[in-house]
């Protein structure tokens, strides 16, 4: 993971403040604002299918960002992210059911999930690396079991109904309106994470990942940061899950399985570990991949190729295989993730034509 700083030359700052901004150039800032503005307009013309994909990318992206903070920034792999996502969903549904206004319920659910994440993060004080990863697998199974058991909380195997999102009595539950809700959380969540990573505790997280022994001797409390990473990651997962629950209106333990957890891992690895925007890029990739292969499959269905090769059902399997294959090929050609390629492209254009 050779992340070279590829900041272009000829880019001068006159104050430390200017040097510490999120956006390295004014252009980037303008670009980001424009992008958000453009996103705000999408509901006006995009179909609900497109919107729903974007909403999906939104809430999954928030959760993926949480996982990236844990895996990419603090260096602790988790194979149980889906249950924290689920916990957020259940918690928010539960709170809303008890009469808490939904927007507040979502935030509280995030905090509640944080607490749960902290508890399951406790082993991180002692356990490291893949051992820890498999310990999180235990969280996956134990919480899944808990969801089924805790009827008071999750409605048990029946699942729980999540109230629609309303703000000051205004119903925001249709795709077009819910889109803004998700967008809001995404923007806030991503900016928050960016800020976090450039301030004290974010740096400490990365330090712990890169060299925990020396980090400790630089005054960083290992136990605290290792555990807190789980807390933050769960917070994001919880918010993502809560947004999901109120989008669908229903939360069930089914689907919160290890496959889902692995998908989250896929998102951040493909997007780029330790990259905030990478989390979003990876989510886009993982959400669109099955859709894209679906379009391909339906285009093939009944086509000449299909007829000639007698594919029939084969197409559905080929589609799955294509998903697997794309992931494999992608990683072979871009093992450092989308964010890395993105950085290289940016560097290339800024320095063009003097690439070296």
């Amino acid at each position, binding site marked *: 993971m050779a992340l070279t700083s590829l900041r272009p030359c000829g880019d001068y700052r006159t104050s430390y403040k200017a040097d510490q901004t999120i956006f390295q150039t004014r252009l980037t800032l303008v670009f980001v604002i424009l992008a958000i503005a453009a996103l705000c307009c999408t509901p006006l013309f995009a179909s609900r299918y497109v919107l729903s994909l974007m909403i999906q990318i939104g809430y999954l992206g928030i959760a993926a960002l949480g996982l990236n903070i844990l895996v990419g920034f603090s260096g602790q792999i988790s194979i149980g992210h889906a249950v924290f996502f689920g916990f957020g969903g259940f918690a928010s549904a539960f709170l809303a059911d008890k009469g808490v206004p939904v927007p507040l319920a979502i935030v509280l659910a995030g905090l509640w999930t944080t607490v749960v994440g902290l508890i399951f993060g406790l082993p991180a004080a002692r356990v490291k690396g893949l051992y820890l990863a498999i310990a999180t*697998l235990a969280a996956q*199974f134990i919480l899944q079991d808990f969801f089924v058991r805790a009827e008071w909380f999750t409605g048990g195997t029946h699942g729980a109904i999540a109230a629609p999102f309303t703000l000051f009595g205004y119903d925001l539950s249709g795709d077009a309106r819910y889109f803004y809700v998700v967008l809001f959380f995404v923007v806030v969540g991503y900016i928050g994470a960016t800020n976090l990573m450039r301030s004290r505790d974010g740096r400490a997280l990365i330090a712990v990942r890169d060299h925990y022994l020396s980090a400790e001797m630089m005054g960083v409390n290992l136990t605290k940061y290792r555990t807190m990473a789980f807390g933050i990651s769960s917070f994001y997962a919880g918010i993502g899950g809560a947004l999901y629950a109120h989008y669908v209106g229903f939360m069930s333990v089914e689907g919160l399985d290890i496959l889902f957890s692995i998908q989250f891992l896929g998102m951040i690895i493909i997007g780029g*570990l330790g990259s905030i925007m990478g989390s979003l890029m990876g989510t886009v990739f993982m959400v669109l991949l099955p859709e894209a292969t679906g379009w391909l499959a339906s285009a093939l269905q009944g086509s000449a190729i299909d007829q000639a090769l007698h594919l029939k059902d084969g197409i559905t399997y080929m589609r799955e295989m294509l998903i697997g294959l*794309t992931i494999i090929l992608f990683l072979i050609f871009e093992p450092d993730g989308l964010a890395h390629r993105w950085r290289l492209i940016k560097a290339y254009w800024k320095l063009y034509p003097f690439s070296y």
Partner: protein
Amino acid sequence: MQSQLLLQLIINGLIIGTLYGVVGMCFVLIYKASQVVNFAQGEFLLIGAWTCWWLLTAWNIPFFWGFLIAVCFMMVFGIAVQMIVLRPLIGEPIISVIMVTIGLSIFFQALMKWMFGTFAQPFPPIFPVAQVNILGLQVQTAYLMSTGVSLAIMAGFAWFFKYSRLGLAMRATAFSQQVAQSLGISVRQVFALSWGISAAVSAVAGVVVGIVNGVSSALSYFGIKVFPAVILGGLDSVFGAVVGGLIVGLLENLGQYVDSQYLKWGNLYEIIPFYALIIILMIKPYGLFGTRDIERV
């Protein structure tokens, strides 16, 4: 009555535990050579089982030969997978390689469904006696076979890593591919070998499970089931994988006992290994036999 049940559960736990141990060793093998946790391990089991099944049913080959061919095929298959997919990733971040194994798992899962259908298929009867009585417990002959084969494989592995030149090379590769290469170790060869052996051994386990339960895609779930066993024993310890397997096998069975007799929780069987896992890791962060990281500055 109850103690009889307990006894039978313990025996069953040990027998299933060896099977977990074998699959666990396949993980350990790949981990030791490359620090990669292979999420496609379950699919290796599956492909091995389907291959053997196909040889037996479509070609009417006697079991012994079919089994042997399947194992050899899987060896070649493992090497091929390594060459095509993992070789380009040598030197890349481990986590990316792990993700690739997840991609492989998705790919082969679908491919197997396409080739062999979605229904579970039974193996033709293989052993003249389908079950054997051990201390009152009826045990499938296939499980006994697997126990025997497993013990042999375990002994082989233990020797391999301790004494052979290649075993050393594998450990060096796992430590750092760069260093290994600087010593003249061909990382490609080491990987090819570990994947080949791992796939071949998985095939053994796959066939056994296939004989007992029929072959179906769901068989690949075994790959994940074995995680706690591997971690309990210590990710890089062959012996640990075996012990871990036995512990998980026993825990499951004892969990079922405690659950059915006293707790009445419902699925202690499934999750008790995970509770045990957390407890053991808190006491021994590197599993029972895993080597600790060197913490020196």
